[in-house]
């Protein structure tokens, strides 16, 4: 019973494809791909619309106000109103802009964001695009975002766009490294780059109680936090939204965009956020696995979206709490702390593996991380001598 509910979407797709029996193989394949693409877009564009309004509402509640509550019940139709507004707005292209690049940047950024969604397993047997190097594909395609951002900044021929794009490049390159390196211990421990096998490796429960997710190992927990912070930076979210810091450089690389192109950037940002959260779940939070054995009755895709929802809530929560960081603080943090810690996670995972993956491995890898963390924080602290802050002309 629960199995059939779990596989309802898979069966539905097979039933749709069975109407094509007798056609040549490539027709079936193309139809299968088209169904996958359609479902991905349908689900995630709906989720985007929903999250864009929920984010505003949750953020508002954290700041003691109501968010949008006028359009439809509880303001839930706000995205429709926003969409109509964005569609009927004038699309301004600056006279001196590079027209082709200016047009291509939003297209590319959206395409890249949607492509990265393809390799994430959404449930049992529910990976839209199954390839061996799924993780590799994710990072390879995801890093094209930088190109799109720079296209937007360069093509707009505007100083704010250019500055924003430069900041974006700097921060995205710096945080791409910890992002990839924190994914490395998982790949090492599982021995595979396939998201499906990574999720499968996290099945089961220790002592029938704690799920065998990688986040419950010391290296996994550290790597998850590092991955999450890098994900925040990669999706340009507060407190790392330096590239589009509106108090400093208008809207960064999106300054010269209006109407639907701006909405496309916005959408790409959210979809990128979903993709990074989805990958974080696949790598560390057990993907679509239920957190307890009795809860396995609930279908796998429901668990995926519950976890995704909670991660997105944390994103919104962090946005509602922390102020924007300064760019130099951010870069220092990336190169001096995040990167060494990411490498430490790799070592800790190796220690965990060779110490027998049990309690002993747990303790040893915890020790490695604790030592490096303490050493790193002490070193970083003594390295900074701050000059006295003097206001010379103050009364």
């Amino acid at each position, binding site marked *: 019973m629960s199995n059939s509910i779990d596989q309802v979407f898979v069966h539905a797709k097979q039933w749709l494809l069975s109407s094509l029996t007798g056609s040549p193989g490539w027709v079936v394949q193309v139809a299968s791909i088209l169904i996958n693409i359609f479902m991905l877009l349908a689900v995630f564009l709906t989720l985007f619309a929903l999250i864009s309004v929920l984010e505003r509402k*949750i953020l508002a*509640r*954290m*700041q*003691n*106000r*109501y968010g949008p509550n006028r359009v439809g019940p509880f303001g839930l139709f706000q995205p429709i109103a926003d969409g109509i507004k964005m569609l009927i707005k004038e699309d301004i292209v600056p006279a001196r802009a590079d027209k082709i690049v200016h047009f291509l940047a939003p297209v590319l950024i959206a395409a890249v964001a949607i492509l990265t969604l393809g390799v994430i397993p959404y449930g049992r047997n529910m990976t839209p695009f199954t390839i061996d190097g799924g993780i590799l594909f994710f990072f390879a395609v995801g890093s094209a975002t930088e190109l799109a951002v720079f296209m937007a900044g360069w093509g707009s021929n505007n100083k704010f766009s250019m500055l924003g794009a430069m900041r974006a490049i700097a921060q995205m390159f710096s945080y791409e490294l910890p992002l990839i390196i924190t994914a490395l211990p998982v790949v090492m421990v599982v021995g595979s780059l396939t998201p499906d096998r990574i999720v499968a490796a996290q099945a089961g429960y220790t002592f029938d109680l704690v799920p065998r997710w990688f986040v419950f190992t010391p290296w996994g927990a550290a790597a998850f936090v590092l991955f999450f912070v890098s994900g925040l930076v990669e999706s340009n979210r507060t407190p790392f939204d330096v590239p589009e810091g509106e108090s400093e450089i208008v809207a960064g690389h999106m300054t010269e965009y209006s109407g639907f192109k701006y909405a496309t950037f916005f959408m790409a940002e959210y979809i990128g956020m979903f993709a990074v959260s989805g990958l974080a779940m696949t790598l560390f939070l057990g993907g679509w696995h239920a957190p307890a054995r009795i809860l396995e009755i609930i279908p796998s895709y429901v668990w995926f979206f519950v976890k995704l929802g909670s991660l997105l809530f944390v994103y919104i*929560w*962090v946005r*509602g*709490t*922390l102020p924007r960081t300064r760019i130099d603080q951010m870069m220092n943090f990336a190169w001096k702390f995040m990167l060494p810690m990411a490498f430490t996670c790799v070592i800790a995972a190796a220690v965990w593996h060779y110490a027998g993956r049990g309690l002993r491995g747990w303790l040893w890898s915890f020790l490695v991380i604790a030592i490096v963390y303490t050493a790193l*924080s002490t070193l970083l*602290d003594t390295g900074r001598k*701050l000059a*006295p*802050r*003097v*206001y*010379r*002309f*103050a*009364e």
Partner: protein
Amino acid sequence: MAITVPRPKLNWRERSYLPAIVAGLAITFKHFKNMLLGRTKVTMQYPEQKWDSSLPDHYRGAPALVQDEDGRVRCVACQLCEFICPPRAIKIIPGEIPSADRFAKVEKYPEAFDIDMIRCIFCGMCEEVCPEQAIFLRKDYAITGFTRADMVHHKEKLLEIGGVMHGVVLKWNEKK
């Protein structure tokens, strides 16, 4: 005179910034929870809830003309308000009351009395200057229109807002 701002000495706990971040997250979550439980009083939802009932008596809203108990417009078209009005929002065309009329003694009445509500600054000088207590600032504040012409209050509109004023002398009361 230079001022040196002391840099606070942070202990290792403060230097990790983690307790501060966690405390911040806890504060926002507390606000979120209190909002969901309806413990936070936020704001008045304006078009549905209005503050009309709690407006004070001396509130200065839209200016309006009043009639007396006999149904006569109190205004005698002396044009003092027109002269005093700082943004020159008021325009009066005086007319003569025919000698056969019951109120012939009053001599003049406003044939047209326009207040341009785009110009009006709600200062209340017209009310202050009026020797006949014919113009008052009422409690209407949501004055809207689609065109500039809509925003001009003609005599009928002014009388509609103003209504009938009873009693003879209100001018020297405490509040008005």
